[in-house]
């Protein structure tokens, strides 16, 4: 489902003395449907960089990144937009939303973008928010003022609303208590069971052991100059 071959990444910082930083070189990996793979390696090894390249918000200059048959490296912006709407879900570490939009709408939004009715999308959003223990009085407020853990759960609810065939998870359990951590890991297990290919970064070792089928140490692709 997710296939990378000979992918490399260099940052060229024009305004900082023209520094050229090679972060990753010759990354090749494959993740099959129903499989969850953890990216590991020390801080700065390039885990998040690699994940952002797979999502397409970091530009890849060489190699191939194929997701469900589409090569992200060559794709036009509108193909990437379609891919992100239908196929590829990304749970980032931070929630970024339009201020003032109520939590329920934020969570329902990915389904609305796929053409679901307000009722269907909001029913699914309610179910996920309850499951993730976001109390009902908060649903009609904007998540911008929520605590870190609550924002993260809203972010997770939003990305699990649609059954994406491929998912990228950047520390999905980082600031969660034990009960909510268990809910998130269960959601990941359910996504695997329905056939999603998942790549995740988990600093939480127990979580990694529970949901990941294998680990890929990103340091082996590092060029030694990682920022």
């Amino acid at each position, binding site marked *: 489902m997710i296939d990378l071959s000979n992918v490399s990444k260099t940052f060229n910082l*024009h*305004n900082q003395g023209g520094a050229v930083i090679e972060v990753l070189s010759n990354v090749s990996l494959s993740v099959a449907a129903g499989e969850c793979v953890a990216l590991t390696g020390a801080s700065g090894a390039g885990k998040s960089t690699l994940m952002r390249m797979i999502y*397409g*918000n970091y530009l890849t200059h060489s190699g191939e990144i194929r997701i469900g048959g589409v090569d992200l490296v060559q794709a036009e*912006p*509108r193909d990437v*937009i379609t891919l992100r709407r239908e196929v590829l879900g990304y749970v980032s570490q931070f929630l970024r939303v339009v*201020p*003032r939009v109520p939590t329920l709408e934020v969570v329902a939004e990915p389904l609305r973008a796929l053409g679901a009715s307000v009722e269907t999308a909001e029913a699914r959003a309610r179910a996920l928010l309850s499951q993730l223990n976001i109390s009902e009085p908060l649903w009609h407020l904007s998540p911008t003022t929520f605590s870190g853990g609550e924002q993260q759960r809203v972010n997770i609810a939003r990305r699990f609303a649609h059954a994406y065939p491929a998912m990228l998870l950047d520390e999905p359990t980082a600031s969660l208590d034990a009960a909510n951590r268990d809910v998130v890991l269960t959601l990941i297990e359910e996504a695997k069971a329905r056939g999603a290919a998942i790549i995740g970064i988990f600093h939480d070792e127990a979580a990694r052991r529970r949901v990941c089928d294998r680990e890929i140490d990103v340091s082996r692709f590092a060029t030694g100059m990682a920022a």
Partner: protein
Amino acid sequence: MTPLLSVQGITKRYGAHIGCADVSFDLYPGEVMGIVGESGSGKSTLLNCMAGHLTPDAGEVVFDTRAEGPRDTVRMSEPERRMLSRTDWAFVHQHARDGLRMGVSAGGNVGERLMAVGARRYGDIRDKASDWLERVEIDAARIDDRPTTFSGGMQQRLQIARNLVTGPRLVFMDEPTGGLDVSVQARLLDLLRGLVRDMGLSAIIVTHDLAVVRLLADRLMVMKSGHVVEAGLTDQVLDDPQHAYSQLLVSSVLQV
């Protein structure tokens, strides 16, 4: 798929000075594109060339019309282009007073666009105007008030209602949130995003506010001295800018 708008080699000079040079891109239905750059980078010149307010020195602006398919709007007759700008196109000005008739009531401002495309029954026009005022969160009880009695944010929302009432397919926006308080900006962004999604609009938004494009635009073009220096997916250009100028632009934003 046929692009809704296909811009090819648009160039506009002001004497020896370059307004914008050799700009080309395709915009597909439902896409929102942002154009950013500092003052004087040519983004407003480009927008005005595309919207037919300025005649470019070279290039084509091909729009996929409902009746006849792709047509070059630069070479269209003036009446045809004006018809387009009353029906399928909309233009949201930075200053609401440039896009509104300040001496006419709020309802009249919205109704006027409807009458321009042939609506005649007073009751229907008034109902539709009142419906649109509510959609842009203006109390329908203010339908007979003039926009001069409205706040800046309300005037901007009224301008949007006036523009969208005829169900356009392409909206040009010039700094739509410029000059408004941040809380009013947020409300306007939320409104615009909902309208874009629900009406399936395509839009081109010129702004110098990177936060606005991140929330509204799918794609982004960065301009400097009349040239497009970088273009791509919005989050790619903002998170991993390639050109020296885009890197400077992104790194210059103050963190709150």
